[in-house]
């Protein structure tokens, strides 16, 4: 297990290193001088030079890359060109919206998908199964930002159950904040729930065909008992993997949904920074998202190996 962990950890570090290089390179070739952008058209040459020096833009590419990476390791993400505030503070503020949103959506997705998948598997080939599977086909085809607009139309504009956008803030109370995240979370969760329900169903169907399930029935367990005690636990392994992947997808997918609901999360931060050419913010937020995805995948891999010892040996 230690060997496996170390091996996965090494590949995690390599992935992070390459990812940081790629992101740095992409931002590097971006046209436009941030200093000129900040000071406007009438800036004097010496003021520009001074600002470039202050931002560290006069150093070589290698120096700046190393400074960026070592800063990030220490939790220093640089200073926003636009607001002159530490990027880490901006990110921390926004994370209080994006992270709860992703977790909320993940919870909803699981709550919808598990029962739906289990039900479909238990009714295999019958009307219930066909209905659930057709619904998931539709769910996969719906763009989540469009679904979000429809939710706003029905539940915010027509029924007035929710606000059409914006974020109440956690200081206004837990329930008020949660309420303003509800429609976005539903919009994010539904397409993901459709995928998860399909995975859950096919994982269960695979397990139901196993010999140990027949044995469980033979020793006198009812269908439901055998499913609960032996089937679910084994079916959970592939489902866990997808769940891990989905969390990173939800975190990144929130970017678009935040646009629909005007939520002050990481997504809006990225778009605002893009239009203001505040590239250091874009760079750091992108790296943070990639970091989150890579770390989540790593954790899922480890969890997988703990649950299923066969995997450790194969590696």
């Amino acid at each position: 297990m230690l060997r496996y962990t170390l091996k996965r950890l090494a590949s995690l570090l390599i992935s992070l290193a390459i990812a940081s290089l790629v992101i740095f390179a992409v931002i590097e070739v971006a046209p436009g001088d941030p200093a000129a952008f900040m000071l406007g058209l009438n800036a004097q040459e010496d003021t520009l030079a001074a600002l470039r020096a202050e931002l560290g833009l006069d150093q070589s590419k290698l120096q700046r890359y190393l400074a960026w990476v070592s800063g990030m390791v220490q939790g220093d993400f640089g200073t926003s060109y636009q607001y002159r505030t530490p990027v880490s503070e901006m990110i921390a503020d926004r994370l209080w919206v994006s992270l709860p949103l992703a977790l909320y959506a993940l919870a909803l997705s699981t709550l919808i998908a598990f029962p739906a998948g289990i039900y479909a598997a238990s009714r295999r080939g019958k009307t219930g199964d066909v209905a659930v599977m057709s619904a998931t086909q539709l769910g996969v085809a719906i763009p989540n930002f469009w679904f979000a607009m429809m939710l706003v139309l029905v539940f915010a504009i027509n029924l007035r159950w929710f606000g059409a956008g914006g974020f109440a803030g956690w200081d206004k109370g837990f329930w008020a904040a949660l309420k303003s995240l509800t429609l976005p979370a539903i919009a994010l969760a539904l397409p993901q729930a459709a995928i998860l329900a399909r995975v859950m169903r096919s994982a269960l169907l695979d397990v139901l065909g196993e010999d140990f399930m027949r044995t469980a029935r033979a020793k006198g367990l009812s269908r439901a008992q055998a499913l609960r005690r032996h089937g679910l636990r084994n079916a959970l392994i592939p489902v866990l993997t997808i769940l891990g992947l989905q969390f990173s997808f939800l975190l990144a997918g929130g970017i678009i949904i935040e646009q629909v609901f005007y939520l002050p999360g990481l997504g809006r931060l990225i778009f605002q920074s893009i239009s203001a050419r505040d590239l250091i913010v874009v760079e750091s937020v992108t790296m943070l998202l990639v970091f989150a995805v890579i770390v989540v995948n790593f954790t899922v891999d480890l969890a997988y190996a703990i649950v299923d010892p066969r995997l450790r040996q194969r590696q």
Partner: protein
Amino acid sequence: MSRALALGGCLTVLVACAALMSFIWTPFDHAALNIPAKLQTPNGTHWFGTDHFGRDIFSMIMVGARTSIAVAFVAVGIGVTLGVPLGLWAAARQGGWVDEVIMRGNDLIFAFPSLVIAILITAVFGAGAVNAIIAIGIFNVPVFARVTRGGALPIWAREFILAARVAGKGATRISIEHVLPNIANLLIVQATIQFSLGILAEAALSYVGLGAQPPTPSWGRMLADAQTLVSIAPHMALVPGCAIILTVLGLNLLGDGLRDRLDPKLQAART
């Protein structure tokens, strides 16, 4: 023919026909502004209604289909032309360092949140259809490399490959002449799935303003225009949304249907 295949095929042909048709005929000029006729709900003259500039939504949907299909098609093309040779190469050198490098590189691209990187690419290199295609296409490469390698490995263990080797054929020739035809079905199914994902990705990028730029119509941007008007003109959001859903649904059903039809083993297992 299964119902999925029939329905999926019909929807896909319908969208493709609408896109092709738009080259020679649309009910109205898709870009013509007609302010007096703005925000009409669907009626006899404007079948899908008009938008806030009085443009005919039916015509815009037809021309927009062109954009969606073109972006998704080229993005799948990038994935196939780069991913399939990489996958074949990795399979031919199974377990060797080439295989290792290609597959680890794939894992790396998979680890990137594709949407974030697509946004980064289009934001830095400029918003537009071409950059959107590249951003979507890059993430198709590892998908096709992985599917190709996965499909090719069992083929390499078959007797007819051994026979070809004995006949003196090199790895490249075997890959092209014997492996590729045997995994073509697999690739067609995967291409259909990636095509539908490409359409969704293009819509998302256009929605946030990073896809095809005006005056090129695109379904995603039509939705972005509709957003502020959704309470007074819901049809502006409903129509492009349904166009996207039906196209993606059609392609997914087509992919499922093709998989069942092309893989007899799977069909036997399902029934």
